[in-house]
C-alpha cells in the first residue's frame, strides 16, 4: 500500500507504507487521521501534509529511507564511559552525505528532526560532529558560515581562561 506525502512546496510524494512509517511524525499523523495499512480507502483519500519539508529535501529523505527500510531496529548505543554518545556512520551513509554543502546538511537535519527519523538524525549528527572535530574556532565559523557575535576582546578573554583545557 502507498501513502501520499505533500511537501511545503506542494509536491506530492507517493511512498510505500513501510517507508512512511519510518518517520515517527508521519506515523503519528496517519494514526490521527485513521489511516491504516489494511484500509486502502483511508490511504487513497488522505494525504499527509509536511509543511516543514521542501521537495528537494524530501527526495533526499526518501532516498535514505529506501536504502534503510530493511535495517534491523538498532538499539540505542549506551554512552561511553566518558559520557559521550557514539554512532557509527555506515559507508553508504558517508557517501550519501559526502557532497552536501553545510546549508543543505542543516536542511536535511531539520527534516530528520521534524520527521523523527532516528537513524538519519544520528548519521547527520555524527557527520557534523566529525566536521567540528579538530578545527579551530574561526575554521568552524567559516565552514558553518557563522557571523560571530563575540568581540575580539571577549574572544581573547575566553581563550585566556580556557587555554589550559585545550588538548
Amino acid at each position, binding site marked *: 500500500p502507498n501513502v501520499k506525502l505533500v511537501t511545503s512546496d506542494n509536491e506530492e510524494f507517493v511512498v510505500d507504507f513501510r517507508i512512511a512509517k519510518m518517520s515517527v511524525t508521519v506515523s503519528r499523523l496517519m494514526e490521527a487521521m485513521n489511516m491504516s495499512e489494511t484500509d486502502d480507502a483511508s490511504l487513497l483519500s488522505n494525504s499527509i501534509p509536511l509543511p516543514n519539508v521542501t521537495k528537494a529535501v524530501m527526495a533526499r529523505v526518501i532516498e535514505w529511507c529506501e536504502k534503510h527500510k530493511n535495517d534491523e531496529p538498532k538499539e540505542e548505543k549506551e554512552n561511553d564511559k566518558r559520557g559521550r554518545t557514539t554512532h557509527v556512520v555506515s559507508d553508504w551513509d558517508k557517501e550519501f552525505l559526502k557532497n552536501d554543502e553545510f546549508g543543505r*546538511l542543516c536542511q536535511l537535519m531539520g527534516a530528520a528532526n521534524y520527521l523523527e527519523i532516528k537513524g538519519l538524525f544520528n548519521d547527520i549528527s555524527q557527520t557534523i560532529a566529525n566536521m567540528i572535530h579538530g578545527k579551530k574556532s574561526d575554521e568552524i*565559523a567559516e565552514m558553518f558560515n557563522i557571523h560571530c557575535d563575540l568581540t575580539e576582546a571577549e574572544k581573547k578573554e575566553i581563550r585566556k581562561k580556557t587555554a589550559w583545557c*585545550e*588538548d
Partner: protein
Amino acid sequence: CDNTPIRHSLMLKLSFQEKYDEEPISTLPDEVWMKIFSYLTSSQRVPLGTTCKRFRELDFELGGTEYTRIAVKWLSRDELGVLAYAKHAEYKMFSADPAKFSTYHMMRLFRKAMVDWLEIKNLRNPCNDELENISTLLRTTTYKKLNLRFEDTHEGLDVYSFITSLLKDRKLENSQIRLSLKSSCAAFDITRMRAVLKQLPKVDKFTMEWTARNESMRNVLPEECLIDDDVLLHVTSHTNHAELENSECSGQGIFSAFEAFCLSDIDSKYISFYVPKPTVEGLFDLLPNSRLKETEGPSEDGSMIFKEIFDTESSSAVNVVENSSYYRVEFIKCD
C-alpha cells in the same frame, strides 16, 4: 475525523522556522545542536566557546569536563584554593574572595563535570559564605570518590548543609565516600550530623570518622557516639560497605539493622561499628527467641572474635570483636 489540533501545531512549527532563515545554524533548534555536540568531548568542544554566543551557551550547558582530581582546600592565611587536574592539564584558582568561585567561567569548568577523586579539607577555619559558594560550584559535579575532612572548625559552621549538598541530586551508587569530622572540643552538632546521615543516598562504600574528644580523655562521651539506631538502619540499607564509628545503638536496634542486612539482595556486604559491652549483652539476650544461631563464648582458636551470630539462609554473620572498652560489631555477608 478532526485533525485541526495537528494542523495547528504544524503551523506553529512553520512560523518558528521562518523566523530564523539567515544562517544555516539558525535553522536548527538548540536540542539538535546539543545532540551534535554531545558526540564531542568537552576538550574537543573548547573551540565552540569562541565561535559565537549561541554555541558558547550550548557548550556551557553541556559541561562534562573530566578530571582525575579536584581539591578544595582552605589554606592558611585567608585563601581558599580550588585545584582541578585533568588528564593533560591542570587548573588552579586561589582567592580570598568567595564570590570568585562561582563566576561564569568557574561554573563552566565544573558544570556536569566528572571527577575521579574529590578532596575537600581545611587547614584553617572556613566561613559559611565559602561553603555556600563551593557547594554552588560543585552542584552538578559527580565524583567516584569523595574525601571530606573538616578539623577544628568554628562551632557555627554549617558543614551539614554543605555535606548534604554534596550528596544530593547525583548518581553515587558506585561512589566511595569518606567523611571525617574531627574536633578536640564538641564543635560539631551531633543531631544535625545524624540528620545528614539519615539522608545518605545509595552509595557503594561509606566511611564515617567522627571525633569529638580531647586525646587525653579516657571515657567515651555521649557526643562521640554519632551512630544511633536510625542511622545504623539507614546506612545499612544504603551502602554495600560501611565503616562507622562509636554508636549508642541498642541491642534491638542492632538486631533490626542486621535483619535488614540479611534481607538485602546484594551478595557482598560489610558494615562495622563500635558499641559498649552492655549493648552487646543486650543483643545476645535477643538471640534465643530468633532464628539466628550463635557460637558459644569466645572462640577457642585464640582469635579476637568474641562471638559470632549466623543467619544461614542469607549467609550473613555478625562478628563481635573485643576491642578495649568498646566492642567492634561487624555485619558480613558473602556468597
